[in-house]
């Protein structure tokens, strides 16, 4: 495999947008292209992420339209990826695989989502479509519900009183909002406290409103290129060190929701390919769609033993200047979660961190960063380790 790098990144502000999916993606994509010191005509393929365009705007087959918005060459194929919340990470991984294999030299990857057009009831319904339609959906399962069941299982398995676990889960939300308060592109840029989280309306017991990430609009994109070309084009290319992706089926086959099988397989691939391990990672953007999700991920990556990460945020170990900085962007929780774009936004944060461009939320001396994106009810996990 050839060495592969990210040349440039771009993302819109996340939040509630009046812009269309295509307009947002055009902004993010053109920023990534401009930052890479190339032109749209240099792009050889577009790996485009979008999950729910059919419901948001009545738009399927969005990839060729995104391609036209950016003025990409007709000979550069545009392909849509859909892997629920892991969409843009999966798209980027496949871009890096094909550049590594020598099929292309320069590929644009990323995604866009305009979830807020749907309103909460329809958004909740369509997000739940990423659960199994015959054997799970008819029970009325929702995404908060899936992670709520994981939280109850975690409390029971490790003998942690639910009230205590919830305080520490609230600590995750407080920490990520603190990080997000320093990110001008975050959906929420406001600090909160534990009492705010514990006073929120119940969404799916035991998850309350502030345990949950928001529905967001936004787009993000990255330019993936062969490393030899990267050095000629930009001052600080950021290199792919290792990647992983794995799949697991419906919840009833996964059984123990405290151990994310797809994530354990995916990170093992990424550690193995990169020759790196948990001690080598300086900064992490991981899939904190719900507060409990961050706790589970910390254990999957072996930053903590199983059953031991639940109070990491409360102890300040995962905040800026902590032992291992988790979600300096604010994470999905505070930065927002436009599902088709999320992975590319996580990559954008890690690239900027490794270039030393993150301003007040810069992780000092960060050289190796990990991206983690989880799709559906633990069905897809994709990990990308980047290095400067």
């Amino acid at each position, binding site marked *: 495999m050839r060495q592969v790098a990210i040349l440039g990144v771009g993302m819109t502000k996340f939040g509630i947008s009046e812009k269309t999916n295509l307009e947002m993606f055009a902004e993010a994509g053109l920023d990534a292209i401009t930052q890479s010191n190339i032109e749209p005509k240099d792009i050889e393929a577009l790996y485009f992420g979008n999950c729910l365009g059919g419901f948001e705007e009545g738009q399927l087959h969005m990839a060729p339209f995104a391609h036209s918005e950016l003025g990409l060459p007709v000979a550069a194929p545009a392909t849509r990826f859909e892997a629920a919340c892991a969409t843009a990470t999966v798209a980027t991984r496949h871009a890096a695989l094909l550049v590594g294999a020598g099929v292309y030299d320069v590929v644009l990857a990323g995604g866009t989502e305009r979830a807020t057009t749907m309103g*909460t*009831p*329809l958004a*909740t*319904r*369509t997000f*739940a*479509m990423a659960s199994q*339609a*015959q*054997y*799970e*959906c*008819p*029970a*009325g*399962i*929702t995404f*908060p*519900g899936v992670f*709520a*069941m*994981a939280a*109850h*299982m975690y*409390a*029971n398995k490790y003998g942690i009183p*639910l009230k205590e676990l919830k305080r520490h889960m609230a600590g995750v939300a407080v920490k990520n909002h603190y990080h997000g308060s320093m990110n001008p592109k975050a959906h929420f840029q406001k600090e909160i406290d534990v009492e705010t989280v514990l006073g929120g*309306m*119940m*969404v*799916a*017991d*035991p*998850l309350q409103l502030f345990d949950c990430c928001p529905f967001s609009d936004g787009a993000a994109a990255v330019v993936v290129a062969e490393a030899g070309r990267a050095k000629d084009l930009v001052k600080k290319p950021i290199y792919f060190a290792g990647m992983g992706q794995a799949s697991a*089926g*419906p*919840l*009833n*086959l996964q*059984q123990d*929701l405290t151990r994310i099988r797809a994530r354990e397989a995916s990170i093992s691939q990424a550690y193995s390919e990169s020759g790196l391990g948990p001690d080598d990672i300086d900064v992490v953007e991981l899939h904190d769609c719900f507060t409990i999700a961050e706790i589970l991920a910390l254990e999957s990556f072996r930053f903590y033993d199983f059953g031991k990460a639940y109070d990491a945020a409360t102890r300040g170990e995962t905040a800026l200047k902590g032992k291992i900085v988790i979600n300096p962007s604010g994470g999905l929780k505070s930065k927002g979660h436009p599902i088709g774009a999320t992975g590319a936004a996580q990559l954008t944060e890690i690239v900027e961190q490794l270039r030393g461009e993150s301003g007040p939320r810069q992780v000092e001396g960060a050289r190796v960063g990990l991206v983690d994106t989880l799709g559906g009810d633990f069905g897809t996990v994709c990990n990308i380790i980047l290095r400067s």
Partner: protein
Amino acid sequence: MEYKLTFDQYQQGLEQEEFSGLQCNACNTLTFPPLGVCRNCGGADLKVTRISGNGTLRTFTVIRVAPEGMKPPYVVAMVELEEGAWVTGNLVGIDPDEADMSLIEKKVKLGSQVVKGDTYSAGDSRVVTFSLIE
């Protein structure tokens, strides 16, 4: 290869209070609800079998913000069957506001109920329900 136990056949079973699963002729594992192959060994030599309908509740949640078309609050739970397979469904016969951690590890009996289809689904279907065994 013909699909051994289709969703439609499984649903007809639920309607008659018969819970059909697939027993693997190679490793003896029970797959429930059905899949194309054995959930343990991947083997396709399967026979349709009736399960006991008894299990243990492993986790649950109370849905309070529901998808369009569903009426909250209601309880979603995961149950481990006597035969080892797990299944997701609705815990019924309790007040959702009374649901707490003490439910975990309680013994339950399987049943089923009809869920109305919506614009996006393939029509009405039956979902597995769980009732606490006193």
